[in-house]
């Protein structure tokens, strides 16, 4: 079986769920490597590049997008069933994407506000990552994913090795490229210390704070970061907005934004109580609880499919 497999080019499939296509396009963006890639793999299913998909099964499936409909929940199970390896690409497939903002709101309200005929739109109440539905072998983070990292995942798959995709913070990348820390030197709010590396610390290199488009690192300490964002001038609403973008539903970001929101509401109701005349109890402190999750790499345990069989 193994021997025969080596004679064939591995069959690659690229799939799309709820997403913007940006991550798939990253594959087409590999202009210099595309011919070499096509020589090593058979691109069997890739609607963005060819309208004639070949039948499964596939050796490697790249899945873009999140699950937002009952049909896609079914489809992702089919994708898993016809794929030897399943790799998610991008924030949607890995964390639910920007469309997971619905997870914090009432999707019925959105539907009524956005669509002239809301009854034509059948959608789930939440946007969920692929891993919420089927086992995933590797998750490539980023919105969009990094071209070099995608090639590394494909190359590693071909070589039968683990992809060299570090899960540490963006700070590593800033320091390696010699960027002066925008938080320490300029007081700019930055999500770099809790954000997964991979972009090469692009924003800080241009003097901007990281906005977390690669999602949480493998050991984010949001309870330590939120007070820093606050002292750098972000109010609670800013912090919630910063955490609720492309990776809003990634567990570490979602829990932190919910905590900040809850403390803001507690403070608001305390203020309302105070202005009503009563000596109201002071609001909860700024989401800086005592019992910090210092044991273990965060609340999500093993992730990224690093124990690929």
């Amino acid at each position, binding site marked *: 079986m193994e021997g025969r497999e080596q004679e064939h080019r591995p069959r690659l499939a690229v799939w799309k769920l709820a997403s913007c296509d940006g991550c798939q396009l990253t594959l087409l963006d590999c202009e210099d490597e595309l011919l070499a890639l096509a020589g090593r793999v058979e691109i069997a299913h890739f609607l963005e590049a060819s309208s004639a998909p070949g039948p499964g099964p596939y050796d490697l499936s790249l899945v873009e997008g999140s699950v937002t409909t009952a049909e896609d929940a079914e489809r992702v199970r089919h994708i898993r069933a016809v794929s030897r390896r399943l790799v998610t690409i991008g924030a949607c497939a890995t964390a639910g994407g920007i469309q997971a903002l619905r997870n914090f709101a009432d999707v019925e309200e959105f539907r009524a506000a956005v669509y002239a005929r809301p009854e034509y739109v059948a959608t789930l109440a939440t946007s969920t990552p692929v891993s919420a539905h089927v086992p995933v072998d590797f998750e490539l983070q980023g919105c969009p994913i990094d071209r070099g990292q995608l090639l590394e995942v494909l190359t590693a798959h071909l070589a039968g*090795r683990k992809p*060299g995709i570090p*899960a540490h913070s963006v700070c590593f990348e800033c320091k390696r490229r010699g960027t002066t820390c925008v938080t320490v030197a300029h007081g700019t709010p930055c999500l770099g210390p809790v954000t997964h590396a991979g972009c090469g610390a692009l924003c800080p290199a241009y003097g901007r704070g990281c906005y977390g488009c690669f999602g949480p690192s493998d050991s984010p300490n949001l309870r330590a970061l939120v007070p820093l964002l606050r002292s750098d001038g972000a109010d609670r609403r800013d912090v919630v907005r910063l955490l609720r973008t492309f990776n809003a539903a990634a567990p570490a970001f979602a829990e932190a934004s919910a905590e900040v929101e809850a403390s803001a509401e507690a403070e608001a109701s305390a203020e309302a109580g105070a202005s009503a005349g009563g000596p109201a109890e002071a609001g909860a402190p700024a989401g800086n609880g005592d019992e910090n999750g210092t044991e273990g790499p965060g609340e999500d345990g093993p992730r990224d499919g690093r124990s690929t069989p």
Partner: protein
Amino acid sequence: MAATDGADGAVIGTGGLAALVRLLRERGRTVVGPTVRDGAVVLAELESADELPYGWGVELEAGRYRLRRRADGAAFAHSAGPQSWKTFLYPQRVRRWSADRGPDGALAVAAEPEPAVSYAFLGVRPCDLRAIAVQDRVLTGGRYADPDYRGRRAGAFLVAVECTEPGATCFCASMGSGPGAGPGYDLALTEVVDADGHRFLARPGTDEGAEILAALPRLPADGGATAQAARTAVAGAADRMGRSMPPVDLRALLRGTLEADRWDDVAARCLTCGNCTMVCPTCFCTAPEDVTDLTGDHAERWRVWDSCFDLEFSHLAGGPVRSSGRSRYRQWLTHKLGTWHDQFGSSGCVGCGRCIVWCPVGIDITEEVHALHAEARGGCGAGGCGCGAAEDGAAEVGAGGVGAGGPGAAPGTGP
């Protein structure tokens, strides 16, 4: 040459400094020194001394760095910036070897040639001079010398500049590594700016340093006035350190406080982002990075900076050994101040204060050690932990456990 300099060294002006940069460049050296970029004094290649941060100082606090204009026009009145010399001696990513598979399937492995670079570092602060010595020991002093580091280091010409303006996060005096320059420099300068002008006391530390100094234009002899002013300024700097370590045997303190509650406290604040280790001038941990190309016929091994704060750094079969932030911070601190002695015969900390400044949340290594010390004093009393709390008088000896040098080493204590 140096015969005319006298015991106190020579005095050069800003013109002499400009000539120094010119001369080093003419000799084929890549001159690296401090310069202002992106709101910080960074280390970068200098084409002329005009690029030095004349008139810039810094205001430092835990987690905070700001440039400040200075009226006196001094070039070296700033303390440690965001980078250290390891950026050049031990670059963040270096190829070690590459391998190609030929058409016949045979592998050809090519080792990376030793780097052909000849640096001159201008403005090496005494803490960083010590840091380079520490890295020398780590990277070339044992059985497994690092050829890339050796190549870069062997030809490097070091111009130390003593500290007269310590930052609020500096504590070299309590680590015995400054503010006067210890051994290891080729040329040492002490900047003096006063009513008599802007000038530098210059002392050679090696033959090449003496040779270079002899070729520089001098200011007229001033009867030792500049040397005296330099001595006074450096001695004064020792008294103005913004931070200090507790004057106890730090190695024993850390050995005795492995289960202290303080580790939980610091872990709650620590981002485990790795900034402290990246800016530390002695932290040397790296990871191997293997790269293959799409053809599968070409492979490369790279050495990249890594950090004990990286969860994957301690990944063994089954997962990371140090999975909690607590265990990773403790690993860093106990190694830096404690087990480094067992491994390399010195402390791994030189008191530059970078880890304090560049920690986004401002975790202060000296504050943590003071807290551990206080907890040990409160907790053990009888002195069983070895921290010396029960016998403070005796423990005052050997500050920092770093051996010779001592706080406030005067200028000219080098060779």
